[in-house]
């Protein structure tokens, strides 16, 4: 029996905005990076003579995409000599004025919508069913609508949504791997999470992640998957291989400057972080942490290093250096203040161990630590300085 090969990608986010402000026309450059990454996927599909290509949602930003983008997209998609299956995601849902509905897509492109959710490639004996978005937010999908797998076919379920995660109130089509597995499909082409997620090369549930990372919370290698399906007497055997597509790599770095006594020392530490990184490929955000007596000007530091970098940002989140241990023993208000905050911090640590809302607790902790610094500075110096929000 003939084996198959297909490409699975998701979360391209053409025309995505970029919140970080880099040098020059940074955002434009990054949007071009997304296109390059996508072109890389299409080229791989051509080079590897893929039988078809799956795009599991969020191909583009519905609200930001223009006719010109669609023209480009049509041009590049029509250049692929294979069927392309797309499901709408939460960023490009199949809404009233969806480009999916308005655009005359090339004949090789098939949009799987709630009205038209399935497609059969008879020659290759492949059945594809899509669970996309028809609104910007969408609750749990009705999996009973998913038809049973077809015998002697490769059955693929394309889903855009959250897998095995409890996001109460976050309506992004949550499903569990158990629910999906119960459908007995051969491959689950997932989309929504930007970080790639696959247990191993033989797993049938894969989040390929965003081909081009979109922010500092998307560090690491980004790409798409090429999946080979071998039809063996014992059944189908799938092998998924990831290939890299990202044009840039995000590097969020936390640098503790506690104990450093001079700006020179800080600079040396920063140089150490930047060593080995490529100014045109790597996007770097260094957050200075810890406690120091130095007044570190993040804008000045950024300006010192960022000349050749497409994106380099140094953020100062250090706090004033205080001998907290000694202050704890202060019988006066300063000591009481430190003790009171420490007590709250200890309670927070306890709560965090109990696994409450880690994000909210972490923010509370951060706020308490900042309050400690501000309070001590106010008590010791009668003023708060060395920090600017402008």
């Amino acid at each position, binding site marked *: 029996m003939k084996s198959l090969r297909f490409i699975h990608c998701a979360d391209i986010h053409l*025309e*995505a*905005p*970029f*919140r*970080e*402000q880099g040098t020059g026309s940074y*955002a*434009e450059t990054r*949007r071009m990076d997304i296109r390059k990454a996508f072109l890389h996927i299409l080229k791989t599909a051509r080079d590897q003579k893929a039988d078809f290509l799956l795009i599991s949602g969020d191909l583009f930003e519905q*609200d*930001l995409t*223009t*006719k*010109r983008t669609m023209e480009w997209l049509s041009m590049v998609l029509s250049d692929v000599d294979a069927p392309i299956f797309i499901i709408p995601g939460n960023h490009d849902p199949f809404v*009233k*004025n969806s480009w999916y*509905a*308005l*655009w*005359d897509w090339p004949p090789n492109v098939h949009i799987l919508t709630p009205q038209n959710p399935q497609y059969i490639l008879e020659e290759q004996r492949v059945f594809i069913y899509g669970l996309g978005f028809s609104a910007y937010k969408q609750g749990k999908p009705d999996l009973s609508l998913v038809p049973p797998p077809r015998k002697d076919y490769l059955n693929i379920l394309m889903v855009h949504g959250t897998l095995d995660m409890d996001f109460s109130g976050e309506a992004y089509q949550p499903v569990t791997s158990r629910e999906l597995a119960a459908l007995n499909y051969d491959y689950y082409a997932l989309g929504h999470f930007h970080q790639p997620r696959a247990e191993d090369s033989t797993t049938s549930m894969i989040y390929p992640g965003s081909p081009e990372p979109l922010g500092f919370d998307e560090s690491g290698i980004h790409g798409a998957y090429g999946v080979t399906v071998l039809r063996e007497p014992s059944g189908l055997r799938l092998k998924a291989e990831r290939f890299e597509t990202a044009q840039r790599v995000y590097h969020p770095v936390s640098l503790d400057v506690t104990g450093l006594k001079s700006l020179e020392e800080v600079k040396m530490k920063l140089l150490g972080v930047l060593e080995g990184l490529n100014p045109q490929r790597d996007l770097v955000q260094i957050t200075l942490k810890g406690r120091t007596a130095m007044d570190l000007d993040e804008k000045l530091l950024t300006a010192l290093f960022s000349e050749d970098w497409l994106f380099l940002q140094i953020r100062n989140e250090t706090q004033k250096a205080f*001998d907290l241990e*000694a202050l704890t*023993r*202060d*019988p*006066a*208000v*300063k000591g*009481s*203040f430190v*003790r*009171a*905050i420490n007590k*709250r911090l200890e309670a927070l640590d306890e709560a965090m161990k109990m696994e409450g809302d880690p994000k909210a607790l972490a*923010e509370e902790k*951060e*706020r*308490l630590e*900042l*309050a*400690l*610094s*501000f*309070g001590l*500075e*106010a*008590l*010791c*110096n*009668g*003023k*708060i300085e060395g*920090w*600017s*929000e*402008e």
Partner: protein
Amino acid sequence: MRITGWDIKGFGRLKQYKAVPGPGFNIIYAPNESGKSTLQAFIRAMLYGLKGGRIGKDGTLPPIKRYKPWNGENYAGVLEYTLASGESFRVGRNFEKGTTNIYDSGANPIHQRFTQDKSTGPRFAEEHLGLDEATFERSVFLGQMQSAVDEAGRRALIEKIANLNTTGSEDQSLSRAIGALEEALLERVGTGRSSTRPLDKVNMRIKALEEQYQELAKISERYLDSFRELHEKKKLLAQWLDEKTKKEALASRLHVKRLAMIKKEMEDLSQGLDEKERALEAVHEALKKAEIYGRLTPEGMTQAALIVHDMNRIKEELAQAGAALEELTAEKTGLEASLDSEESFIRRTGDIEEALKQAASQSGPGASGKRGMPIPALVAGCLTLAVLGLWLMLKHPLLPVAAMLALAATLFLWLRTGAGKAASPSISPQTQALNKALSQAGFMGLDQYMEYKEAWQKERVAVEAAGKKLTEARNRLKELEAAKTALEDSWRGLTASWPHARMEEGEAFIQRWREGMDNYHQLSASKKAILDGMAHLTDKRRVLVREAAGLLGKPGLTYEECCEALDGLDGLALDETPWEETVTEDELKDLEQRINSLNLEMAALTARLEQAPREGELSRILEELEGLREKRKKLERTGAALNLAKEILLETAKQVRRDYIPALNEEMSFFIGQLTSGKYTRASTNDALQVLLSSPETEALVPVERLSTGTIDQVYLAMRLAAVRLLEKRGEPLPLFLDEPFSQYDEARIINGFKMLKALADERQIFFFTCRERELQLAQKVMGPQLVRIELPD
């Protein structure tokens, strides 16, 4: 802790200086600039070390450099102390080398036991005293009171007291700290009441961008609406074009069928037209014959009838008038024949008349009777006329007879009267002449003459009357002749275009005329009907030609061209079978029109789509928004932290006031009582953070601000000492280093002060630094032998 001795190798201006202080009150009396402060710094440095670093921006040297010996001596020293537990320690430091050695009472080096600080070495003092350097310095070192120097100093001291009473530390100001937090919140973040602070600016920009975004999003949505509309219209256009193609194909088939029908209809029409043509020709012929009648009108005919009628009447009248004329002529001729001519009459009567004139002129007036009718004749005449009138009125048959009788009587009387007179016998020459004349004229007498004359005159009147009648008859004849001529002229005018018109034919002619005219009108009506019919057929044919031309796609074809084109079409056989599907030209036109309208709408939409939202504009706004939202989050986090700091600070200050301040005041009461000889016994702090002293004498609470400068100094000292006591509670008793604490005191206060210190020296070591001899003396006086005086090297 009690310091048992020191050996200064070199420290600032002090060198090779050893001393063994007493366990209680020690006084160091020396002039200014002799090393008192250096000694205090040495003790502090031995316990906590000296920090290095760079020269400050204001030129301040770091501690390690500040106390470097002036003359190059060994920068080192030794300090020995004993803790309350009885343990003794010896600390040796070489500040030059940065080494620290600590030995216990058994001379065992123990510095490794303590936490090491990179710059200051082992942190043993923290462990032994339970205080860090800052707390140690802040609590056990009491500098000069400055309240009396100036008002600022006084305020500073009051603030320190307030700080002690609110935060437990003189250099920790709650109000200043709260103020700093609030200022930071206002200046660097912004509050709900501010409008120009960073958070406000960020919020305003976010709001503006969000509005801008909404506006652009609406434009974008409208753009997409238009795009969708265009997309739908494109689909509709494709559908309609397909429909049009089908309809046109159907129309084409229907055209063929229709053309065949048209051809047939046109043939029928041609045949009909030919028939009409022939009928028209016949009518034309008939009309040509009756053409004359066409020129006549009913009014003319009526007029002609009237002329004929009048002519007949005139002819009758002419005949009558002619007969009457002849009769009158004969009558007149008869009368004239019997009447003498006037010449003959004049000749015969002339002489007589002359004779009569002469005779009349002789007879006088009686002759007048001869010229008139005698009265009886007139009466008879009148009677005759009356009878005739009556007859005329009554028509009685006897009245004409009576009239005739009356007339006869009249004539008789008239004749008798004249004749009587003429026959009267008055013979005169004139009578004779008359008679002669009469005779000559053949008259027998005058009567005869008179009869002759009367008869002649009568006849003459009759002739004249006949002549008159004759003239009238002639005139009438002439009138009739003229009327006849006029009628003949009218006839000729009326029948000028009809030369064969004969008036003489009269009614017969009129009758013939009427019939001819009716016939002519009927022919004309027939001709009109035929022409109308032909026009109708021609119109119908024209419509068919136009339709056929339309179907053939050759507009403007003439009939002949159309016939030629239809004849040239192959397979144009008439199919009479009904067709299920039909499409009308109107339907096709309507579809065409709809397609055109749709194309126009699509062109308008395409033009509208040219006004697309600017590329990347929404992304740019979103990006700026994202950055600003992050900034706002950071500002809000900072604001929340500042508020939290303020909240916790106020809470802890409250707690300090609740837990620490009462104890502080309790301790302080002892010292203030001692210092003021019981004038003030307690201190307390109200909710306004105001320090109040209670005076047993007046039972009043006195705010510190109202006290004298000296008393404020005393309160401050009492509080500092109380603070030390609280600090060391259940811990190591700390030595006190008092540097000119009584500088502003009067003697009584100084004595009270020393008394208080004497009591305090029982529990701790006191180092009292002064440059005033008087204080030395008073100390010696109060302390007695307990006082240990430590000398400073020269």
